[in-house]
């Protein structure tokens, strides 16, 4: 058995398909490509395909990852080419490599996402004012939000401090009627925050919250305290 890690995009029309749809789509593309997938044992065998993290509907990405397990060793160039022939426009394999079968699961490895968020502005605001606002925001020690959590089937309100989940925010581009923010946020089981919540909390800079467009740039995890992508990790 062999394990292959794959980086791919989810863009264009494909931002409208759900995480479950994506799973089905990948499995079917691999079946059409005649890749000899490994299956789970048991009543209802499933191909061994696992993803790093689910992307929200409407969000595009250049940094999606999955691990697949196959029965036979295959040429990675062939895999990339064939998958791209079988995948719909918007989902594209960017790179892949063999990883040890016992590698840490993607889901456990990933800790950060970087995003580019295009924010249409409702009214004119100076570039410096936005920068100032971001600076003040990042200087806060605590930023609290109310979250509805599901506890044993009962919905409860819970206050969460999101400041530790925000690594970096910067103004990447500024135009009169819209600005682009780049941010690095915690992602995964050890803490997770979505960019739209951060933007909403940032407030006061007249962003049209209904029209922001989020794009994920990359996923990262830690290796020896270094921030590395899932394809760069050595083990």
């Amino acid at each position: 058995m062999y394990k292959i890690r794959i980086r791919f995009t989810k863009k264009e029309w494909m931002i409208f398909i759900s995480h479950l749809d994506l799973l089905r789509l990948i499995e079917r593309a691999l079946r059409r490509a005649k890749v000899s997938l490994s299956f789970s044992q048991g009543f209802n065998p499933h191909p061994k395909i696992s993803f790093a993290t689910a992307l929200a509907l409407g969000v595009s990405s250049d940094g999606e990852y999955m691990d697949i397990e196959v029965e036979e060793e295959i040429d990675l160039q062939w895999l990339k080419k064939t998958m791209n022939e079988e995948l719909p426009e918007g989902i594209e394999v960017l790179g892949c490599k063999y990883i040890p079968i016992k590698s840490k699961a993607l889901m456990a490895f990933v800790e950060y996402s970087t995003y580019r968020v295009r924010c249409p502005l409702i009214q004119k605001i100076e570039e410096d004012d936005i920068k100032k606002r971001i600076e003040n925001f990042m200087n806060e020690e605590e930023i609290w939000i109310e979250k509805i959590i599901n506890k044993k089937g009962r919905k409860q309100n819970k206050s969460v401090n999101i400041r530790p989940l925000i690594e970096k925010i910067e103004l990447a581009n500024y135009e009169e009627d819209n600005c682009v923010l780049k941010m690095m946020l915690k992602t995964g089981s050890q803490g997770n925050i979505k960019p739209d919540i951060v933007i909403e909390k940032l407030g006061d800079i007249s962003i049209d919250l209904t029209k922001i467009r989020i794009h994920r740039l990359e996923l990262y995890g830690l290796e020896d305290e270094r921030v590395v992508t899932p394809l760069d990790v050595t083990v």
Partner: protein
Amino acid sequence: MNRPKLEELLLQVEKPARYIGQEINSANKSLEDVSIRFGFSFPDVYEVGMSHLGMHILYNLKNKQKDIFCERIFAPWMDLENLLRKENIPLFTLESHSPIKDLDMIAFTLQYELSYSNILNILDLGQIPIKSEDRQKDYPFIMAGGPCAYNPEPLAEIIDFFVLGEGEEVNLEILEKYKEWKKRNTSKEEFLEQISQIKGVYVPKFYDVNYHEDGTIEKFIPKDERYPKKITKRIIKNLDDVYYPEEVIVPFTDIVHNRAMVEIFRGCTRGCRFCQAGMIYRPVRERSLDKVKTLATNLLDNTGYEELSLSSLSTSDYSQIEPLIEHLMNENEKDKVGLSLPSLRLDKFPLEVIEQIQKVRKTGLTFAPEAGTQRLRDVINKGITEKDLIDAMKDAFSLGWNSIKLYFMIGLPTETYEDLDGIVDLAYKVINLYYDTPKEKRGKGLKVTISTSSFVPKACTPFQWHGQDSIETLKEKQYYLKEKLRHKNIKYNYHETKTSFLEGVFARGDRKVGKVLMKAWESGCKFDGWGDYFDYEKWMQAFEDCNIDPHFYANRQRNYEEVFPWDFIDIGVSKEYLKKENEKSKKGILTPDCRKGCSACGINEGSLGGVCNV
């Protein structure tokens, strides 16, 4: 619609994947390169429409033609509808996202009566007038086909023309005529004149209907002698020669039947008297074993589906079913492709084979005795005996199954409370059978699901004369069963009687009920088949406003002299035969399966002649 606008809308709605198109194997043609732009519409949501095999056949058939571009149209869910209406954006096709009013022709498939209001809504959302007479030359032609087209009259004012029977040949013949007409650039009327001469095509506006004072039909008359008096349904003679799609669309989103489908035969030889499909899809024609095998392989190769289903009206009646299953099991074992066999008659089918298919996961077995007593099963000609059922279930329990579903109909002709008691008896017999099975053999925890649907008499069946049970009668029967089926192992399901009643009205309605349809839609009725959205009060108000009595259509017992709205349609099975079957039913006389002897239904005579291959 331009892309940014559509994206903006889709970011605001539930399950946007159903509106984007772009799926693997969907068609993509340049609008400049085609001479006909066609729209295929299933008047329900994407998830339902995309599960329909007929759509895939006709969609791919048309797109195989170089100069035809067939696109799909479904009913948008309310959230998108509200946005479209608010912003005055016309409904768009899935493929090119262009307004449906830009198409040359739109075809609706009529699979159930309760989808009719959605047809009106789709046209209106497309900014197309709903009445045929209001659509001038710049609007597309609107056609319809499918099983409900066997009584087309309720839609006579809406649809420009209907196509009766199987569509593979006649669709292309119509489009050929369309191409010529487009060049000639004459009136819409002239095109309809042309196609009225094609076998299987019915143009309602070329016919008049005269009524008696009591509301029944006196005469159905062509307005001119050049229009055919009888419209004969179309059939495909040889299924091995006819086109079958091997590159079907693979949806992104989960749909009702998310799997590859191979049709193994058309028609059914059982002759159940309540069943419209069993009459209108005659004669039985099988696809050869080799052809089915090839199709299955190619479909799986081209789609990557993880499940394959065999499609027909009665899977176990396929003459080569066992070798076929063996082949498919062996072939797909390695790739873990599941096999699903809907419409299997389990009473005569080896359970060991099913066990093979379901492997360790025993998902439950479904039986359809349809009626509770042998007497009533004989009335409906459901050739199934209690012994068959009991034997099959005994086997099932000792092989470890513990979940059994039994389907029945209530409101069948001649039904009494004794027949309902028969349902109850059967349910308890099943429970006893389970507990009689040695503990070490049977699965843990018995679940018996009893479902009753309410019988709706349909056009072109031996029960087309029968008055449907009233809502009150059906409710009493359901209540009776509910009380008697209280048991920890039994779950009793039943259908909403009000929707069955409305279905009954349209199944045997005439042109007059079309007015009610328009009225009901105007007052907001749509998605009537979706329990939560069905508004009975609005429908009843519409009947009252139009001064039309729905009971006249649903509940009235007809006599043999009556002229039915659909009598001008020749399904190959004669009205005489249907009468004979109805008479036999009253005496509980069985008619044998066609494979065991011909009962002269008429399909082998007349214009369809000599095509039974049983």
